[in-house]
């Protein structure tokens, strides 16, 4: 680039001030978020719900390589009791065609078709312990869950699935894991045979963050004034 006017200290100062302003705004926004009010709701599953205890926990199975099945003895159907989605996803071969119990929150949409319904059932901490992330102050990582096929009219028992502002129905299922489910075109699924709702859907209160609202209104007022002044100046010209 060829220079027509060398840079002036005042220009550098302006750039530095702009950066500091931007950084200040970032800190202000983050500070407002950190002090956001939380609902304090309790989303733990009540003991009276009689939920099965988690029996099978697997951290990692390692890759399933040809001629090296992860579990040599998978003949016949074994009953693994209650499993986590993490265990099933880490070891699809281990659980393939096996009977399991699974507990989690129905999230997303209930896709009714072909004489049944597909649902996504999460068993992460947002589903079973702390509730939706936006309403509580606790963040527990990414979601984890399983695709579940509910045959017949089983889905009719469901209330509202989880989503923004809602913790959906928490259900306990028993069924068979399919490592490659033909019904799903090759996905890892749980085909349920029984289901019961252990905790009905509940609204997750998200209190309005007044400081955030005030900041928004203040900034909107400033920008509206800027636009107004700009229009007047342009009109005078």
């Amino acid at each position: 680039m060829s220079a027509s006017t060398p840079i002036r200290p005042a220009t550098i100062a302006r750039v530095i001030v702009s950066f500091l302003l931007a950084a200040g705004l970032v800190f202000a926004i983050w500070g407002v978020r950190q002090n956001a009010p939380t609902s304090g709701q309790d989303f733990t599953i009540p003991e009276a719900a009689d939920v099965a205890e988690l029996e099978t926990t697997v951290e990692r199975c390692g890759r399933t390589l040809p001629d090296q099945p992860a579990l040599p003895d998978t003949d016949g159907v074994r009953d693994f009791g209650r499993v986590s989605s993490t265990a099933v996803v880490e070891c699809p071969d281990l659980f393939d065609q096996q009977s399991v119990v699974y507990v989690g929150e129905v999230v997303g949409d209930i896709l009714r078709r072909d004489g049944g319904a597909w649902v996504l059932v999460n068993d992460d901490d947002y589903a079973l312990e702390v509730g939706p992330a936006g309403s509580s102050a606790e963040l527990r990582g990414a979601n984890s869950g399983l695709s579940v096929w509910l045959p017949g009219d089983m889905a009719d028992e469901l209330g509202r699935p989880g989503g923004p502002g809602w913790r959906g129905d928490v259900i306990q299922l028993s069924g068979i894991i399919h490592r490659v489910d033909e019904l799903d075109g090759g996905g890892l699924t749980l085909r349920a045979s029984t289901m019961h709702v252990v905790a009905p859907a509940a609204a997750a209160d998200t209190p309005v963050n007044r400081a955030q609202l005030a900041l928004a209104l203040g900034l909107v007022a400033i920008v509206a004034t800027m636009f107004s002044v700009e229009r007047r100046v342009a009109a005078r010209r």
Partner: protein
Amino acid sequence: MRTETSREQIRTVVSIQGQLLGILGALAMAVAPVAVVAGEWNALSALLITAAIGLGAGLTARRRLLARRDLTWSEGMVVLGLAYPVMSVLAAVPFAMSGHAGSWGDAFLEAMSGLTTTGLSVLHDIDHLPHAVAAWRQSIQIIGAITILIAGLTVFTPRSQKASNLYGAGVRLERSVPGFVTTFRHMVKVGVAWTIAGGVALSLALAVAGVPLLRIPFHAMALFTSAFSTGGFSVSSASVASYHSWSIELVLIVLMLAGAIAFPLHILLWRGEVRRAVRHVDTRSLAVVFSTALVVVLVGLGRSGAFTDALPLLRRGLFQVVSAQTTTGLTVVEPRVLASDWGLIAPAGLVLAMAIGGMRRSTAGGVKAERFGLIFRGIFREMRRVLLPDHALVVETYQHKGRPRILTDAHIRAVGTMLLLFMTTHLVGALVILYGADSFDLTEAMFESVSATSNVGMSIGILGPMSSGILKTVVVLQMWLGRLEFMAVFALAGFLWSIRRLPARSTA
């Protein structure tokens, strides 16, 4: 290389950054009604903050800094280099205020991932993300896609391969791309046509899949923005697998391929010049790489023992390869299943597809099929040189814009340099990922590293909200470098260096 930076140049660069923030602010205003309809008041105030800051910056840039002159090519590179981090700071605001980001850095990564059309995510609890924040997350992919398409038609012209001339060229953009305005109009036409066709096809497929009627527009918008921009964000933690629908997968395959096709080729197809489009080196290279990757993945899946029937194997394999090759990152497989149940060969095939990526002058990332094709043509040329007599003149040509072009040493050098830069970034990234997440092995780290550098967003389960800071930092750098194909970042570094070098004296 002697480089000098003037006050006007800084004004120009800062002015355009401000105007880009203004565009983001306008986008936030456009998304705000979603928050009103959904009754998400905290999301609404977050979007209003974003809009106010963006529009305020845009107005200031126009009023105080607007440069009344053309942008030079090197300035264009600097603008582009800065654009992604600057826009990401503002685009991060709704994420940071949603309560789903663990830190400001996480919100920044999410924004950078959307704007670079990568699709990797570190937000907590996506399945409960407010509708307005989800809509914002999907929308910024479009802004990122348009930015890179315009860059592809302007600063990423073949001239930009002359890295040594980055600061000496002074080429004015309107001269380097004389047909830009016409091309842009065609881009809009093609984009609108795909939006209508894709939106209708997705809506029908979603209805068939059993998605409740009132929810179809939201899902259709989310899927279309992800597929056509090759961004890959999803409104469900299970991505496309949550729909369990072959018809949705089929429409998405078409949209992803459309997103990864160079816009000049779209225009050729629009005009019915199919033969010219097919003969282009980009098309042929993409077809060869895609076929190779598909065969590798299908053979790998067959060997893994997971699939016993051909149809599910083909359906899963095809979708994943298209998603990887087009650098979209949508998935029909749970990320950890890629590591736990797909063996070693199939993920390696996906890595190959991700590393090469789509076409130049499209929204796809990666090394780009054209460059890969040119490298191979270069290898053939050298082989012929060895085999033919010394006095034989060996000339290798390739089809570009319907005309044969001679492959020169300069071409090979430029393409080779780019390939080397990508490979180095893949490797260094993988090593840092291993350092930051030592419970994973090198193959898994390589998958994640290539995915980030090629702006794919397909994950094998390493990067997540709870990942270490070093891992997240390296992923941000990889997404930025990969999206800009390194040169714009180098230009930015040179620009900043030149500011530092100049004597700070007043001569105004």
